[in-house]
């Protein structure tokens, strides 16, 4: 298709605004499987931005590319759980049968295959994406089926539906998932009770953000409302926006953002909420808008969940039709609408200020804080950014009240938590538990053998725990987690796990600050040296030191937690590390014999004399 036509229609669909740049580039990538140079020039002209800025985005987001990828762009998830169930075999099968090398476009331009970070399907892997659409349970048979479709050039729209089926996989429901709910109830309750009183309910619920950091939601909303720049002239600081909200315009004073960039490896619970509880999510955002005085909301949906986009758009349209979104919602002097913006493969965009940068059409680089988003967020406006689950909780609280919610859980962690359980257990999937549940009980429910190497709680950025900690509890005051819970049995190799996590952080580092950019690369190299059996005692000391530098000096949470996989396992399983070391004082940073590979290839020799002597010993 003509590049100019595509550019024009994308700009028409999204608006000729720089904030829409990422959306436009997503559209171009979907159409051409790369961003053609001519398209860069055209977009730059129409959006009045520099071509270099556009290039900088393309080179930042994994799902965009300057050089062509295949008409069938295949990305296989490289999360540790995908590895444990053989994603490597799947990649080999695809590459061999399709005659393509990983990361290299096939000569006819039809296929490219590569790996990608966790796609949020750890309970039904190996998984991946084809042209951005999720495919799961990639057994050898299914791969055969996919290969045939590709070689017959069947367009993706005509592929059998079962290949794209994603199972909800709810294993246990609690107060959130069991909640009976009628559309509009939370909004009605908010207006009946009054907005200020509803914020009081949120305060008494003691709800804390479900993304991981656990900031008090009511406090965040209150701060955002407090930063009012217009109105409030009567000096009544206690007043909660009982003045009419603005009409839906670009001039909206405050912004509500839903963080649906669920990128922590091993987390997939928001996938469920976005599928089955999307109305409650929007309702939570709407209640937030009513309380803080906003008329504009955004859902930042991770690129990996693109398959959910159409259903979410349809749900928004349905709500507009039913007067639950748009102008004068339910007849009140209250206007609010929601727009969905799609990410493009960057874990860092789950960090709220990087997410805001991405929403604005920039590279996802975390901002300097303060100022915080509650005062200076999207387009510098006061902005509330909350996780999907937090908004769903907020909707339930608006409807049923704070004390209903606070009766569950622990004193510091009220309510329930959705966990994404994956790895070595009989029943992986989504579990809702009230806060305070012990690890032991979780293992019991999901049918895990107790002979375990350990559990990664909270994903790679969280903590690795071993058997003597299984009485610990899921709660902000003990084991805090955004929802990832990966179980490893005793047959698993600790170093394979830690290596996967450590490489993940180095791949996802945005590169803004020195300690994270350079440090995560140094850390992967140092770890790989030990993993390959070339480590000495000094290397272990160095490994820990690099980890602590990254932790102490990094700009944002990614860097501050990037060494957690190493530091938390080193603290718990030092013997495994020591057993991995060579029993000598010093080892060079490289393997001299393997460095001679090139010489051996050039001389076409691979006999014993072409190897260094110590190799044989």
């Amino acid at each position, binding site marked *: 298709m003509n590049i100019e036509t595509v550019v024009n229609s994308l700009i028409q669909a999204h608006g000729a605004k720089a904030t829409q740049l990422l959306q436009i580039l997503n559209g171009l990538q979907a159409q051409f499987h790369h961003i053609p140079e001519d398209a860069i020039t055209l977009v730059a002209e129409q959006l009045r931005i*520099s071509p270099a800025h556009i*290039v*900088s985005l393309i080179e*930042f987001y994994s799902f965009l590319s300057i050089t062509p990828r295949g008409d069938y762009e295949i990305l296989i998830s490289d999360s540790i759980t995908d590895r444990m169930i053989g994603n490597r075999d799947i990649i080999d099968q695809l590459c061999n049968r399709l005659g393509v090398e990983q990361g290299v476009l096939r000569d006819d331009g039809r296929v490219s295959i590569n790996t990608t970070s966790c796609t949020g399907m750890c309970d039904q892997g190996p998984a991946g994406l084809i042209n951005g659409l999720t495919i799961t349970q990639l057994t050898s048979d299914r791969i055969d089926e996919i290969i045939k479709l590709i070689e017959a050039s069947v367009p993706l729209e005509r592929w059998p539906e079962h290949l794209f089926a994603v199972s909800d996989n709810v294993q246990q429901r609690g107060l959130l998932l069991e909640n009976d709910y009628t559309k509009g109830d939370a909004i009605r309750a908010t207006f009946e009770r009054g907005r200020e009183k509803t914020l009081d309910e949120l305060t008494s619920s003691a709800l804390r953000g479900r993304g991981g950091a656990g900031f008090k939601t009511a406090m965040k909303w209150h701060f955002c409302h407090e930063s009012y720049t217009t109105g409030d002239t009567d000096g009544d600081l206690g007043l909660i926006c009982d003045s009419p909200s603005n009409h839906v315009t670009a001039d909206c004073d405050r912004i509500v953002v839903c963080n649906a960039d669920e990128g922590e490896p091993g987390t997939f619970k928001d996938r469920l909420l976005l599928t089955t509880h999307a109305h409650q999510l929007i309702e939570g955002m709407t209640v937030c808008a009513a309380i803080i005085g906003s008329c504009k909301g955004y859902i930042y949906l991770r690129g990996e969940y693109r398959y959910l986009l159409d259903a979410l758009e349809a749900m928004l349209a349905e709500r507009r039709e039913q007067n639950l979104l748009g102008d004068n919602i339910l007849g009140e002097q209250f206007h609010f609408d929601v727009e969905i913006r799609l990410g493009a493969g960057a874990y860092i965009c789950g960090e709220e200020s990087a997410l805001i940068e991405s929403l604005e059409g920039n590279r996802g680089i975390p901002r300097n804080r303060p100022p915080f988003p509650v005062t200076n967020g999207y387009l510098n406006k006061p902005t509330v950014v909350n996780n999907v689950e937090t908004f769903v909780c907020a909707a339930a609280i608006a409807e049923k009240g704070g004390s209903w919610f606070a009766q569950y859980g622990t004193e510091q962690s009220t309510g329930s938590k959705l966990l994404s359980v994956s790895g070595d257990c009989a029943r992986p999937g989504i579990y809702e538990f009230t806060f305070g549940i012990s690890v032991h009980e979780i293992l019991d429910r999901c049918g895990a053998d107790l002979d375990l190497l350990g559990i990664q709680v909270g994903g790679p950025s969280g903590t690795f725990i071993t058997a003597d900690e299984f009485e610990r509890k899921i709660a902000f005051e003990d084991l805090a987690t955004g929802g990832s819970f990966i179980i490893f049995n005793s047959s698993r190799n600790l170093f394979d796990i830690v290596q996967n996590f450590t490489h993940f952080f*180095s*791949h996802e*580092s945005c*590169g803004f*600050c020195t300690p994270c950019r350079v440090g995560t690369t140094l850390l992967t190299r140092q770890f790989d040296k030990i993993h390959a059996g070339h480590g000495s005692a000094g290397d272990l000391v160095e490994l820990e030191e690099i980890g602590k530098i990254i932790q102490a000096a990094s700009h944002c949470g990614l860097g501050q937690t990037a060494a957690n996989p190493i530091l938390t396992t080193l603290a718990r399983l030092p013997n495994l590390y020591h057993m991995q070391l060579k029993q000598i004082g010093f080892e060079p940073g490289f393997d001299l014999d393997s460095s001679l590979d090139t010489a051996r290839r050039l001389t076409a020799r691979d006999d014993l004399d072409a190897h260094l002597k110590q190799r044989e010993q």
Partner: protein
Amino acid sequence: MEQHITIDGVIVPFKPGETIMQAASAANIYIPHLCHHPEFKPHGSCKLCTVNVNGRNCSACTFPAEFGQQVLNQTDELNKLRLRIIQMLFVEGNHLCPACEKSGNCKLQATAYQLGMLDSHFPHFYKAHEVDSSHPDLMLDRNRCIFCTLCVRASRDVDGKEIFEISGRGINKHLVVNSPSGKLHDSGMEMDDRAADICPTGALLVKRQGFSVPIGKRTFDNHEISEDLDEQ
């Protein structure tokens, strides 16, 4: 009442809205830094100015001074951290000081000396970086770029040209030139642009001026970078 913070126990006054770095500079207290420049909006990426504020590490160049803050600056722990960070910059790029015409005027080199750097500690990356000598008056050697973005900021905010941009992610981050060829010669860059002499290292150099001041008489040849806050 005058507002103040303490830095290593010394009382340092500040004006509302000032950063810790600004307050420190005004009081003639040196905090190591590379991406900070008083004429430009702070960036906060090099992390050499990491200080400890009430028990928490922060970048002095971006963190607002607030009454009652107890700031630690010259501690062994922080200087060790800064040493490791600057060593990271040295192994990431290819910095061959003896052969670099910026030697003696280079803030990366001077700050490394100030931090007592005697070796690079980490293994070098030896990564190939593109050198752009296409411009008649300017030379861009990406081997020496430390991503301080001062050229990006100067070109955008002072020259109004947007000639530079940071692209790529993570360790693949790199400096790009906004021109049809991707090189400097057709970028509209001129040698008297503010961006042309802002580079703290030898990545962006004006040609034919490198040795007009002999080695031995250059800015940091005779005193440490910490002793002369006017040079920053």
